[in-house]
């Protein structure tokens, strides 16, 4: 069992949990993920590591309440425990001194971009960060991102904080200003990552994205997380989750993420009914 040491609401639907997992915390690196299972009947949920504390022995996850499992996870409180917590999984992000790196986080993707931005910063890169959300209330990790960035750009869909628009608007400005950019790292919704990839392709800037396709075991066993990268099919769990954005077939990824739409709905309804009865 893995105890929840801290729980915070980053917004009404985005939650942060710090979980005691000393062995994982010892090994975790930026870009890796964990798989958790709340209880015996639960599904295996992959979550990118949002932070790790080797001294305190904790792993931080940040998630948005979207389906049954995340809704149920959000009902847990500090002091409660999670049944299974496996990690660190996947290849760590390729951290080195590239020169100038732009880190882009959209929505809940701001959480996993943070340890990457921090690691890039520690590796000597000049980090420019762009974070975006629907509105000010959905925005989090402003302080954290600011502390590891030379410049932090904030955008919201409605303009309630920072500039109104999309993260790609800022990226576009940066690119057009002729600024020398050596690396772009983007994590967020698939359409956002696709848009970033399309923008940087023309400039030939190395661009990484972190993918979160549907997966079961997270150790290479099921192949459910396969994504087309260039000419080949890769398993995001062991070959990724980071991939060269210019090689990823984002359209296919979008389709694959919809595979269980109906079942996700059914599962949620079933759970709500049970909870009403119970």
């Amino acid at each position, binding site marked *: 069992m893995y105890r929840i040491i801290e729980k915070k609401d980053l917004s009404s639907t985005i939650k942060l949990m710090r979980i005691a997992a000393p*062995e*994982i915390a010892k*090994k975790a690196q930026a870009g890796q993920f964990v798989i958790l*299972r709340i209880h015996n*009947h*639960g*599904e*295996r949920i992959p979550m990118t590591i949002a932070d790790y504390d080797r001294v305190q022995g904790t792993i931080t996850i940040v998630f948005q309440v979207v389906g*049954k*499992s995340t809704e149920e996870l959000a009902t847990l409180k500090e002091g409660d425990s999670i*049944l*299974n*917590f*496996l*990690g*660190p*999984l996947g290849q760590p992000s390729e951290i080195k001194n590239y020169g100038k790196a732009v880190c882009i986080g959209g929505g809940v993707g701001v959480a996993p971009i943070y340890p990457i931005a921090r690691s890039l910063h520690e590796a000597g890169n000049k980090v420019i960060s762009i974070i975006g959300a629907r509105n000010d209330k959905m925005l989090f990790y402003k302080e954290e991102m600011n502390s590891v960035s030379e410049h932090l750009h904030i955008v919201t869909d409605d303009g309630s904080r920072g500039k109104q628009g999309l993260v790609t608007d800022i990226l576009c400005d940066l690119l057009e200003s002729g600024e020398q950019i050596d690396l772009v790292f983007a994590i967020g919704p698939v359409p956002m990552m696709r848009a970033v990839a399309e923008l940087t392709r023309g400039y030939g800037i190395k661009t990484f994205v972190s993918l979160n396709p549907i997966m*079961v*075991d997270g*150790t*290479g*066993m*099921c*192949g*459910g997380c*396969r*994504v*087309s990268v260039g000419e080949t*099919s890769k398993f995001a769990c*062991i070959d990724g989750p980071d991939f060269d954005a210019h090689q990823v077939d984002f359209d*296919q990824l979008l*389709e*694959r993420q*919809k*595979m*269980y739409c109906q*079942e*996700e709905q*059914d*599962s949620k309804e*079933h*759970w709500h009914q049970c909870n009403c009865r119970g």
Partner: protein
Amino acid sequence: MTTKKTRKKTREVMQTQQPKVRVHNFDEVALGYTEEQAVAEAERCLNCKKKPCSNGCPVGVDIPGFIELIREKDFLGAAKKIKESNNLPAICGRVCPQEEQCEKNCILGKKGEPLAIGRLERFVADRERECGVEMPPLPEPQDKKVAVVGSGPAGLTVAADLAKLGYGVTMFEALHDPGGVLIYGIPQFRLPKEIVKGEIDYIQGLGVDLKVDSLIGRIQSVDELLADGYDAIFIGTGAGLPNFMDIPGENLNGVYSANEFLTRTNLMKAYQFPEYDTPIKVGKRTAVIGGGNVAMDSARCALRLGAKEVYIIYRRSEKEMPARAEEIEHAVEEGVKLKLLCAPTRIIGEDGWVKALECINFELGEADESGRRRPVPIKGSEFIMEMDTVVMAIGNSPNPLISQTTPDLKTGWRGVLVADPETGLTTKPGVYAGGDIVTGAATVISAMGAGKKAAAAIDRYLKGDS
């Protein structure tokens, strides 16, 4: 039920659930022998001095010995006799290919049906479990520690054998439940998970410490385990990486690897969705590509999950199918259709989903290096089958994580670990391996056989004998 002087030429028939009934549930298909049947079957044994049956057993069970105890109705004694050399009898009694091993060597088979050794093994193991398993006396604990990586058939065997010798054994499992392929792969209706759990409880009862959620290669490397004070390591991580055909359309929604299809169904209990959270998608028509036991298991799961038509698509003929005859027979009885001498050439999609499968017919040519006649495609014979789900059951490769993170472990074809077949010793001192990670995908019992040899070799190594 009296003993006849002339021996029956045919074996006692084991009751099974009727195909029309069982296709709607995940309960066990084969129902096992009654006590009377077990004794009557045991009466058929000739008790040959040379024990040809035992010679056919990869773990060397004293078969005539336990059969004799059944005849004497000492069922618990019979179970103990088996457990002297086999730690997982309830599992082996169900999934071993006995017809290729012990039963193949049975003298009775020359003039009639061989003794039903597997069914008798299953009977005594089940009887013992019902009565409550008695733990063997444990020896004095030794001060040496062994890490076992992977809790499938090979790892369980090594862990049990070394624990019985008094070593401190820690078994690491990446998934949330132990058992490897016994738990994620082989379906409930062939090997109930309660049975697997019972056998693993026994092994834990021997003092084996089990750590689930522990992926070696990530949370700790093999070298770190050695530095951590483990005196020897056994790697039994299996062949977990699913192969795909590399044909167009394989990443469409509705295409599964057999591993994923079976893991969702068995380990995650998708057949009880939404009581269990993990879903699975099976439309009206399912095609399973491949001809092994995994293909049969997938096809039979698909039927039980509600598919109306299920096809096994295999490029050779039925004779060449690697699946056990009994598994093919059960699948066909349940309504699985065999589409032989053909293979898919592409998967056709619509809006991201599987719509149809294009296949090509084959004919059998000359024998290839495996001794089986090589299938040759017939030009222009392509045809299209409407399909909702496609399951690729064309084999697995070893997971590369351990070899990637342990530089001095040598690997061979497709990434299998190089190990001495007699001892399991790898190219790294103190590190042993066995099962599918060494041989590529094979059987439960051959993995157990490799585990047995490795456990003996580890014991010798730790005593300084070799």
